[in-house]
């Protein structure tokens, strides 16, 4: 049975920074939503349903905040869904919104994801001890550093690869007016001189903690302007820990990617995908996910980074927006990747636009590298 067509027809995002003290949660969401609706040229009566995504409620200290936000989200009298799949949630939110159109249930859906981390303390929210679970108490960086170290050992990648990713993404972010961190003058030397936080991850190789939101309008038809047609979506999950689990190159990610490429009719991702927005919260995850996604063979991902192929102008520009390394409102970070992929396809990425984009990847992951969500968007249905 054929799915209905679905396309992104508008995107919007906030200015991201560490503390958006000028807006409430509602104001933050509306900043992104109003921009997405203007970009799509739609108004509230055009929206059939609203899908909200964000990471743990403890990040803001509000239980199911979409309930109190229903007015601001324009959801009154409409269907409202709230998705939560850890760090991958922004991507899953886009996929759920897409499925509502692809299933023929709705014609136009608003997907919005946000995090206002300054309302609370994310480190505290992530560190509540729970029975029968090994306490890490190290935040995300401490959790992922051993995976990075393991990747370096397995692949034989030189130590400067992580710093190269940081330089590329922060310089890309300087071209993005919404980015939290904009560092046009960053250098390999300055990254390598920054404080070591969780060996081998340095301060400049780490994502910031941001307040921000992102919104996209998904429609069953183009609305006058350009559209980013959704060619494929994929979700996969595996448990956090079990004996023999490959946390460097998780099977859930590999299987999600394989399903994604199959659905999109892509046999050689490196040559057929023109730009990729990949969830890279710590620099080394660029080469790790290039391998997990099938852009490079295991152990070879760092070579794409080192040869400059992941820069704007390279064979596969990765994170021309600056990515998670430049802005990380956790719940929105995945949707930002998906929206940036759509912006590239629609030719609306401004100063960080990659030339001649026909096909783009949006990617997000969450939990202990165990939740994956992805989509492929393109210029034609």
């Amino acid at each position, binding site marked *: 049975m054929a799915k209905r067509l679905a396309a992104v027809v508008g995107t919007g995002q906030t200015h991201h920074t560490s503390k958006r003290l000028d807006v409430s949660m509602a104001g933050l969401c509306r900043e992104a939503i109003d921009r997405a609706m203007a970009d799509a040229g739609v108004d509230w009566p055009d929206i059939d349903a609203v899908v909200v995504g964000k990471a743990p*409620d403890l990040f803001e200290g509000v239980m199911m905040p979409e309930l109190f936000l*229903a007015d601001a989200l324009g959801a*009154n009298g409409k269907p409202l869904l*709230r998705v*939560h799949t850890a760090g991958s949630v922004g991507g899953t939110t886009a996929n759920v919104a897409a499925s509502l159109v692809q*299933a023929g249930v709705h014609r136009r859906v608003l997907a919005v994801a946000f995090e206002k981390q300054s309302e609370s303390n994310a480190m505290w929210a992530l560190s509540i001890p*729970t029975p029968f679970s090994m306490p890490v108490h190290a935040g995300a960086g401490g959790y992922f550093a051993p995976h990075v170290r393991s990747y370096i050992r397995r692949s034989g990648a030189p130590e400067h690869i992580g710093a190269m990713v940081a330089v590329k993404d922060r310089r890309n972010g300087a071209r993005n007016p919404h980015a939290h961190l904009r560092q046009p003058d960053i250098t390999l030397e300055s990254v390598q001189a920054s404080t070591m936080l969780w060996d081998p991850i340095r301060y400049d190789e780490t994502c910031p903690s941001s307040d921000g939101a992102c919104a996209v309008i998904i429609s069953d038809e183009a609305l006058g302007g350009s559209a980013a047609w959704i060619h494929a979506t994929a*979700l996969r*999950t595996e448990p956090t820990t079990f004996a023999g689990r490959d946390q460097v190159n998780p099977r859930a990610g590999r299987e999600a990617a394989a399903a994604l490429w199959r659905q999109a009719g892509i046999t050689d991702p490196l040559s057929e995908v023109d730009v990729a927005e990949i969830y890279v919260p710590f620099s080394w995850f660029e080469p790790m996910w290039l391998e997990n996604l099938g852009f490079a063979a295991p152990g070879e991902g760092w070579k794409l980074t080192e040869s400059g192929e992941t820069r704007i102008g390279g064979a596969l520009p990765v994170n021309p927006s600056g990515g998670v390394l430049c802005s990380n409102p956790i719940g929105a970070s995945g949707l930002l990747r998906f929206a940036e992929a759509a912006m590239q396809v629609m030719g609306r990425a401004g100063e960080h636009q990659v030339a001649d984009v026909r096909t783009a990847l949006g990617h997000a992951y969450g939990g202990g590298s165990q939740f994956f969500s992805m989509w492929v968007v393109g210029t034609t249905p």
Partner: protein
Amino acid sequence: MPDVAVVGFAQTPCVRRTTGTTNGVEMLVPIFHEVLTGLGLTKGDIGFWCSGSSDYLAGRAFSFVSAVDAIGAFPPITESHVEMDAAWALYEAWVKILTGEVDTALVYGFGKSSAGQLRRVMALQLDPYLVAPLWPDSIGLAGIQARLGLESGQWSERDMAEVAARSRADAMSNPHAQFAGEVDVEELLARPYLADPLRSHDCAPITDGAAVVVLAADDRARELCDRPAWITGIEHRVDSPNLGGRDLTTSPSTVAAGKAAGADGVQVAELHAPFTHQEILLRQALGLGDEVRVNPSGGVLCGNPMFAAGLGRIGEAAKRVLTGEADRVLGHATSGPLLQQNLVCVMEGRD
């Protein structure tokens, strides 16, 4: 578009307190086993998994992440989660099946309310800037709603007690119920108020529990069960959170969802009404006449596992079709303060 049906349902006993963790694993493993073996399925046969739960109820971030351990999700699975009652996870799974990507889905919800002070926890659903700092607890708010209905003549305290008495009598045939028994309305009315005008029998109990439903499409559903409960309409809507800005004696979101889902002509309705007056309100909103059998399970007044109870209503309603007791049924779920968000699922048997 495929036709989608409920083909299986299982639930834990509703109990005041369990000894397990707040991530639900101990409650979920037995009911996954029950529902899958009942259908002759293994976890590998399930195309899509979707769950509903709340981190605030669990008192920790990412409680659903550990719940995935109950599945044994390796090889990896296609899975999603809503921070809502699992009835909305069922909705997401229904949509997933409509896309044609999968032909089976397993939906689960869990809640261990005994882990915290439920009345206070639920206050955190309110506007965090203007309302929640006053800590209006969930029973106090329901009392305001009940009072408005009493004063407008929409229901009486006797009407409310009769709902409680009927529910507990019906729950005598439900082995999963937390409360059941013959109670006298006069005796109930003689009891003291818990939060005037609500007495304890007007309020759903604090419950630990979980529920699971299996959905399947077309021929797959017919293979798996003799009499699938075909979903003919499933709709949900949300109302304004502004408690002073909406008429609390009705539920516009329920009215709209019921109309869109086609609630007419149902024989049995399982309504997610955590307070006795809310059952009366929901009956009116859905236009259910006296001929409709409401909450034959005893409803959530006899066991209310948060984030699983709405899914449980759909499961209980579907059960009447699966067993051949009814041809057309309705399951309802609610979420948010004072019936803010509502879902209606209408199902029928086809012989």
